[in-house]
């Protein structure tokens, strides 16, 4: 399989969405390290996926944003407080 066929095989989408099996993931990461085209293809799909979510302006769950998270001081907290 040549590089372009590999990129267009669905492995990029499969890896990014967490659906590649361990062997495929290791191979994909090796291909990313070896070929900037594969890295670029991964980054392009990641951006597309992210934009698809961000453009929908999904609201944070109100109850949580008013409660638990505002009370956290991340820097000072060695371990996050117990969830309740």
């Amino acid at each position, binding site marked *: 399989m040549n590089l372009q066929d590999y990129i267009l*095989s669905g492995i990029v989408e499969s890896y990014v969405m967490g659906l590649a099996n361990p062997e495929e993931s290791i191979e994909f990461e090796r291909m990313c390290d070896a070929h900037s085209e594969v890295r670029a293809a991964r980054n392009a799909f990641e951006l597309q996926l992210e934009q698809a979510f961000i453009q929908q302006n999904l609201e944070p769950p109100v109850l949580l944003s008013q409660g638990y998270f505002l009370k956290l001081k991340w820097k000072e907290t060695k371990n996050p407080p117990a*969830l309740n």
Partner: protein
Amino acid sequence: MGSSGTYSEQELITALKAREDQAFSYLYDHYSGSLFSIILQIVKSQEIANDVLQEVFVNIWRKMESYDPSRGRLFTWMLNISRNASIDMLRSKSYLNSQKNQEINDNVYRSDQVTQPDIDSIGLTKFLGKLKPEQRVLIELAYMKGYTHEEIAQIEDIPLGTVKTRIRNALLQLRVYLK
């Protein structure tokens, strides 16, 4: 943070790794809605999704040092943490018990139906809905329920190679709809 009150990806990662409160607040404000949508679509309960989202942010906090930007964008990493935590929840005893109780409640009265948001019209499911039914079924099983290709081959009684090809084709099609 940049002068416009936003972070570049790199600035955000640096600030998060330095554990700056402001960066975590920014992360929550900008991404929790997206992450919550994927969690809700997997666990299908607002209350449980709230719990999972809390767990996800704690995990993000805990794992931030080991996050490697060379392996993918921050959002992808957070999305996968959210999906994995949701699937772990699906398989937990407490979830399975809550589903049993829910079935009993549903048989008595269906009051919760009114307040449930339409989770099929938002987030990733909005795009999954455009897939052909036979493609959607496989993505639901693999992405939303976390089954391996081998398990899906058994469930659907189709060859493993076919499962793999169909899932990859479905993902390529999904990508077209994301545009």
